[in-house]
């Protein structure tokens, strides 16, 4: 700890307090991971709490849960690093009335150790990932108010590590739009033949709940968009997304984004793909295309093989491409270990080469 930091701590400076809080959370995460591992090994038959199912607080209607993940990276252009990437807490409140509440608060990068940085909590910060209230109008319409995930593609709506097969995230799922919407959304499911169509229509009018951007993409200044997902069968879905938006700090230009995505599961294989196109009449590269296709196959027991190809237009006009090959060990639904290698061309800034590994648990 440097002299300045020591001074801050001795005076009860807010920065020092936040760092201390992060250390406590980091220790908590370690404890959770240790408990999780023991739970797996012991197959505890206690009904009070089960890993990955959260914890229900009696009859209050409150359900607590969350997830944690540890990320490591190395053997690439960047120095190696290991970090407690996410420690997230879900709070659901649902008493059976027409109102439901959900929030997700997380600590990002709470503990970091790297080739040049040593062990530090300096990069950690709190983030309000989601916070919203749902009003259930009828079986087809729900009104949501607050901060929520932007419904573009599948990945952004399920982007937590325990639910994904790779440590790295496709560029196309985060580079061209804000991950969050702060405003109002109307969503629901409409019967369509034997199957159904999920829809959502949203407007972003507020920056009250916005956190600082972490992906290099600003939050929406304002946005209007919609998404449709047609469940062709239980194993096949296609989605269409549209968004018309202005980003914070770039209010002189308006973007139009169109996305197409699909997911197909066949026996022990799963494929999914997303393609997004963004048009902006002010930026140098007016027409930007990005996309990926990913396949997952069960290899043996709980071990899965993953392969992904990505392409992405960049602001400098270059087309970046990467391939990802990886393995995932998924012993139980709430737990996953991942290891992958990513290699590409023109990918230094958005998706650098390297080996990436992670462990994630829902709790």
């Amino acid at each position, binding site marked *: 700890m440097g002299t300045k930091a020591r001074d801050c701590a001795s005076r009860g400076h807010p920065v020092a307090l936040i760092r201390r809080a992060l250390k406590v959370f980091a220790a908590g995460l370690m404890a959770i991971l240790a408990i999780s591992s023991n739970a797996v090994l012991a197959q505890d038959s206690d009904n009070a709490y*089960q890993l990955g199912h959260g914890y229900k607080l009696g009859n209050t209607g409150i359900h607590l849960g969350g997830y944690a993940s540890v990320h490591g990276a190395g053997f690439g252009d960047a120095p190696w690093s290991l970090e407690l990437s996410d420690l997230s807490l879900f709070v659901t409140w649902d008493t059976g009335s027409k109102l439901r509440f959900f929030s997700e608060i997380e600590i990002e990068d709470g503990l970091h150790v790297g080739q040049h940085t040593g062990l530090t909590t300096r990069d950690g910060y709190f983030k309000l990932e989601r916070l919203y209230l749902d009003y259930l109008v009828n079986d087809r319409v729900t009104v949501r108010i607050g901060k929520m995930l932007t419904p573009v593609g599948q990945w952004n709506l399920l982007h937590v590590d325990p639910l994904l097969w790779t440590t790295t995230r496709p560029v196309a799922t985060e580079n061209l739009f804000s991950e969050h919407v702060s405003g109002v959304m109307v969503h629901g*499911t409409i019967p369509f033949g*034997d199957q159904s169509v999920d829809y959502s229509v949203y407007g972003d009018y507020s920056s009250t709940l916005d956190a600082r951007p972490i992906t290099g993409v600003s939050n929406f200044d304002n946005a209007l968009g919609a998404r449709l997902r047609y469940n062709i069968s239980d194993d096949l879905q296609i989605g269409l997304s549209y968004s018309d938006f202005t980003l914070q700090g770039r209010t002189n230009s308006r973007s139009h984004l169109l996305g197409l995505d699909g997911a197909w599961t066949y026996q022990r294989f799963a494929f999914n793909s997303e393609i997004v196109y963004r048009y902006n009449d002010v930026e140098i590269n007016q027409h930007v295309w990005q996309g990926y296709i990913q396949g997952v196959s069960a290899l043996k027991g709980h071990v899965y093989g993953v392969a992904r190809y990505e392409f992405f237009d960049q602001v400098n006009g270059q087309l970046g491409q990467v391939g990802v090959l990886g393995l995932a060990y998924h012993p139980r639904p709430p737990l996953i270990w991942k290891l992958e290698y990513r290699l590409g061309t023109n990918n230094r800034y958005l998706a650098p080469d390297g080996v990436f590994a992670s462990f994630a648990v829902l709790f």
Partner: protein
Amino acid sequence: MHSLRILFNIWATHLRRDTVQRLTVRPELVEGWAVNPIMVRQAHHLCPIGYERLNLKLSRLKWVANICLMVLALPAFADHEAIAIVTMPSSPLQSVSIETLKRVYLRKILVDDKGKRWIPLNLPAFDDLRQGFSLALFKKRPEDQEDYWNQQYFSGINPPDVLASEEAVLRFVAMTPGAIGYVRQRSVDKRVRVLKTISIPGKH
């Protein structure tokens, strides 16, 4: 029969991985998702012999349960003639379609067309009726839907609550507006209204 069923339940919760009548029983699924404490209490009241009153050592229970299992498992599977979907008699609903039932049990819809909350009920994951219901409705066993529920959990949606027995389902449904459950056709009585009857694939 209730006592034997309880013994079997206790024994089953201590299984690590076993196979019963071609069903893979996994401990995390046997334990099921979080159950409303009120429902648990109601379910316990329904049992002529509660866990507390049994007061036997688990090792002895397991031995007894092993014998009970052999007696119970075969006939329980053989008489799966049909499943009745039930709700309270005063419900305005007269019937329910398979598609709606699927969406209710996947919790894709949380309220009915009048805006009243659905309260879908499940039996424990190892229960043969639950297995049959899941196969009939989703063509999947409960354990094959774990990834789906993990995704829903991320969105703050939890699976249907679990009750311990068909009798518990009947009592809860009879008293609770919006509750919907399933029992064997032969278990239906005047306390509930049958909305639909479905058959288990591969059976009668």
